């Protein structure tokens, strides 16, 4: 039984047929590299998986249980252990780090009042322990707009790590990162594997994905055009696959 299974997924944006009959699955403790050129439909596919919007056709199963699209949402995905770091990072620039980390699932009392103390302490833990931020004097109260590109990505990833999901989806996480920061992200993905969890790693560059993935899914113009197990693939063959679909 797969952790996640999507069958015959379609999605339209007005006239654009962004996903055409897509099958996609993620196994237990599996790292899936989802690759394809810009505009292939990778982000659209995982936005459906993460509950941001429903598909226009097809079926979805999580741990073998069918998911009704009407009752599925980001909140539901979170509670089912699916955590997403979106390509857009999903941060509020003007808000402090601690609010960003807990957005959507704030620690509160019975009246819904925030436990600011706890949120700030846990945010500090995310920054120092999980992400090993070293920025001198960086405070959990700093607004996100003061952070560098790498630090912003760190907050988005740290937030996903903190909630201890079974499946972590990373959409182009290394875009705009320095070499050292890319290394941190790849370490993080290896750790996901070590602790027995699963990951979907999206990229349009193969080099990063290649070393950490168990399986590759290649998309082009809204369709899954190829799948390769790690053993049957080389970097060169994957690059060829992407190129060939583009002719």
């Amino acid at each position: 039984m797969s952790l996640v299974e999507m069958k015959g997924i379609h999605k339209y944006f007005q006239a654009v047929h962004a996903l055409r009959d897509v099958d996609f699955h993620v196994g237990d403790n599996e790292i899936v590299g989802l690759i394809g050129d810009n505009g292939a439909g990778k982000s659209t596919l995982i936005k459906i998986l993460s509950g941001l919007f429903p598909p226009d056709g097809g079926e979805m199963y999580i741990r073998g249980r069918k998911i009704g699209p009407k009752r599925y949402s980001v909140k539901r995905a979170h509670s089912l252990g699916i955590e997403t770091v979106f390509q857009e990072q999903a941060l509020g620039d003007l808000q402090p780090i601690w609010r960003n980390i807990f957005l959507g699932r704030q620690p509160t009392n019975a009246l819904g009042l925030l436990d600011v103390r706890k949120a700030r302490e846990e945010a500090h833990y995310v920054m120092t322990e999980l992400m090993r931020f070293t920025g001198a004097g960086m405070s959990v109260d700093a607004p996100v707009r003061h952070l560098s590109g790498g630090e912003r990505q760190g907050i988005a990833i740290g937030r996903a790590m903190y909630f201890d999901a079974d499946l972590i989806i990373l959409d182009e996480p290394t875009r705009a990162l320095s070499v050292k920061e890319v290394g941190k992200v790849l370490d993080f993905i290896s750790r996901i594997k070590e602790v027995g969890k699963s990951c979907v790693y999206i990229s349009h560059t193969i080099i990063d994905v290649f070393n950490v993935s168990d399986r590759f899914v290649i998309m082009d113009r809204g369709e899954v055009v190829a799948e390769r197990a790690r053993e049957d693939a080389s970097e060169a063959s994957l690059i060829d696959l992407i190129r060939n679909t583009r002719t």
Partner: protein
Amino acid sequence: MEKSHSESLAAAEKELENGPLKERLAKKLSEHRVQVAVIGAAVLVFGTFMVLSPAVFLRPRIYVAFLSTAPFFGIMALGLTLILVSKQIDLSFPSTMALGAFVSASIFAATDNLLLGMLGGMSVGAVVGVLNGILVTKVGIPSIIATLGMMFALRGAVHVLSDGMSISLTALSGAPLRNVFVGMSPIGIPAQSLWFIGIAVLLWFLLFRHKFGDHVLFTGDNESAAQMMGVNTDLTKTLVFVILGVLAAFAGVLDSLRMLRWFPTLGEGYLLMTFGAVFVGGTSMFGGAGTIFGTFIGTFLVGSLEAGVIAAGLAGFWTRLFVGVLILVAVTIHALLSRR
């Protein structure tokens, strides 16, 4: 584990606190620069009044007068602050004020029950908020247009329903319940200003210490980010319109209770005063940020100008000029401060 997180943050903060005093002060000041600016403006305006007309402005009477008139639009300015933080706008609240108070006065006229009337009026305010919310989030009309339409439609409805006639509430003069809302409180300040303070405190907690306020801040800051983290931004926006609708109806009830008469033109002069109070206070239209404290002070600044202008011996029509200049100066200062 949790214990260690708390100790670790405490240690990190200690380190920051051990920095030079000057730096720490500068940091605190810059964190609260909007509040500091609005306090500065208040000191300047009232200082000028005190110099120009010390006989009036060095006595408490004039301040009691502000406290009795400013809360009516101040209560709406507090609700409008939340609207602007969520990156929406609402032009309909002066009409909601009239409609809510009309429903309230009509129910009272029919039942002799003021509380029932208030409940009815505020429910209508909530319904107006829901309608605004549906027009904006489900139909997809920009809030400036949707609420402009609502403003005209409701004002028209009020005139049609009331036949253009006012409603007397003199039966309530001396009623203990009236004193609870607009009487003189035992501590010598008008009851409506205590309601204003209470609502300000409540909305501060709602915006900055409640889950809902978190959603309002992020909806205004980055709506798609809020959605990606599971916030129902349509519901959040609708609730913010509902809050202002209810507060506008409440303000309308208070205002008509004070005058002991409901007028179909109730609220017509309040649109600009209310926006003025919010902008002078330092909340911008960019969304994602705002200050309840600023709106609170801004209300008294805007509310004091009319009385101040007259007391200073100028003709009443100078008021608008001063309100306009105050808004422009305040907004310029806030814009310069936020550029850093």
